[in-house]
């Protein structure tokens, strides 16, 4: 045991970081060579869109992470627990609306939902909160308004559709008396507030920004390489285009703070299809399903993800038909 613990301390720079730094230096040295090698119009178009989505979303992500950390450090879940009524049917809409007050991205709301259940909040309300918080919080609504300038109806439609989706699923869960198995133990409490704040910010940022990069890369690839005629042929069909963008939202797993910008970039699609993208995305995507499987078990995730997808799609379709 002792010898094993001695070994890493002789290398003050851990291997991983050394490799990372070496890669960065190599990159800087080979930069001019790489420019010539990677000089393809398609690649440059893709990289412009990729960097653009990333850069546009980044300040919003940092803002969201800061806000979420402030609230989770200063305002404990106990405040929420006090507000939420005992009766599940009454608790569900309250939890949905509480999502407005507790901004956080998808990744943050999964552990929060788990801790709510541990502290005695009814599972249906916790699930409603899990679905509502990333979809209708102020940061998301503001970035949606920025992404769709002069189209406040889209912001309203997004708010309503997401809230209705969350409450519908919550009530369904309450009526079926569904449970929410919680496996993960409580996260270690930090004694120092400032340190807890910084740790939360850093953790949330790295957690979500990585997924943002993946989503931006895929979205930029769709924008660059998918032939516009093909996109248009799907975009023209009202029902199919909604389903396609819904599936796209599941596949790209965007952060809810950033997805409005991607939705706005899908210019050939109808506003209703874009709405479906923005309602499905924060509710269910591949990374969320993975996180839910980790937190609540695979059996839960396998049932919950398709249910959420269908409800979100139908609600978005109806809301779009009504409002847009």
């Amino acid at each position, binding site marked *: 045991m002792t010898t094993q613990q001695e070994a890493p301390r002789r290398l003050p720079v851990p291997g991983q970081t050394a490799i990372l730094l070496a890669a960065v230096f190599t990159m800087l040295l080979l930069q001019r060579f790489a420019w010539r090698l990677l000089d393809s119009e398609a690649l440059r178009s893709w990289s412009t869109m990729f*960097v653009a989505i990333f850069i546009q979303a980044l300040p919003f992500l940092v803002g969201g992470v800061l806000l979420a950390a402030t609230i989770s450090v200063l305002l404990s879940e106990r405040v929420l627990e006090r507000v939420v009524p005992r009766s599940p049917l009454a608790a569900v809409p309250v939890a949905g609306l509480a999502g407005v007050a507790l901004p956080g991205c998808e990744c943050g709301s999964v552990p929060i939902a788990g801790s709510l259940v541990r502290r005695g909040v009814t599972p249906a309300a916790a699930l409603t909160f899990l679905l509502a918080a990333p979809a209708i919080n102020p940061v998301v609504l503001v970035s949606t308004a920025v992404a769709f300038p002069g189209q406040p109806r889209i912001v309203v439609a997004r708010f309503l559709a997401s809230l209705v989706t969350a409450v519908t699923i919550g009530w369904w869960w309450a009526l079926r008396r569904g449970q929410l198995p919680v496996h993960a133990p409580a996260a270690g409490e930090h004694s120092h507030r400032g340190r807890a704040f*910084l740790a939360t910010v850093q953790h949330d940022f790295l957690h979500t920004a990585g997924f943002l990069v993946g989503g931006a890369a895929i979205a930029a690839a769709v924008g660059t390489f998918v032939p516009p005629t093909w996109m248009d042929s799907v975009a023209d069909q009202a029902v199919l285009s909604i389903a396609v963008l819904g599936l796209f939202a599941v596949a790209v797993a965007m952060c809810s703070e950033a997805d409005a910008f991607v939705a706005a970039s899908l210019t050939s699609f109808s506003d209703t299809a874009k709405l479906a993208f923005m309602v499905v995305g924060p509710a269910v995507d591949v990374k969320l399903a993975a996180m839910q499987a980790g937190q609540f078990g695979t059996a839960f995730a396998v049932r919950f993800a398709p249910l959420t997808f269908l409800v979100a799609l139908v609600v978005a379709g109806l809301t779009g038909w009504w409002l847009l």
Partner: protein
Amino acid sequence: MNRSSQAVVLLLVGALVVRQAITDEYLHFVNPWMRSPLLVSGGLLIALAALHAATDWRTLLSQAASDDERAQDHSERGHEVPRAAWLLVAPVLVFFLVAPAELGSYAAERRLSEVREPAQYVAMRPLPPGDPVRVTLVDFLVRSEHDPGRSLAGREIELVGFVTSKDDGSWFVTRFVMGCCAADATAYRVPVEGVAAPPDEAWVEVIGRWDEGRPARPTLKATLVRRTEPPRRPYE
């Protein structure tokens, strides 16, 4: 991802964003008002990396026993970062290795758009006095197709954009219009007749007159083409 790699990644991303905001390069990707949000968020990421490094350094200096280390390991377990965080290196790699610039003719071909008719109540303002008058491409297209007052008629017009061309030799002055970021940009183009085509992707100022006979196909009958530097803001 271990702790020091986390700090390095934060620093890289923060530095990339701040660099863009300082050098005007961000205008190739996003709107001008994004400058301060980029500076602030990039600065915060750098500060976070610095604080992180300082904390680690202090721990390293005061490391009296392995107890500390073990305690730290333990407290970290709640903050494990997924492998997806490594993807954050990708924008930095792409930025340095591919050196993305503003969108050009390749994207323009795939993202061509047509102007929509302005709302009825929007009265078309007269063009400012003095010839040649510089108008945006979208303004030119809207006025050509949808202006009952024919405000373009008889005026000398100046358009700025980059060159795209077809195989048959016809060419266009082209410009992207951006809503939010370059990923949602759409291209508009105006056919230019009467002067030889400059090379593709070259930025030009074109001076000429509106082809009044064909309002449905807005065309500029050019008298002069000048090569220019790419504008600071490539998108309209």
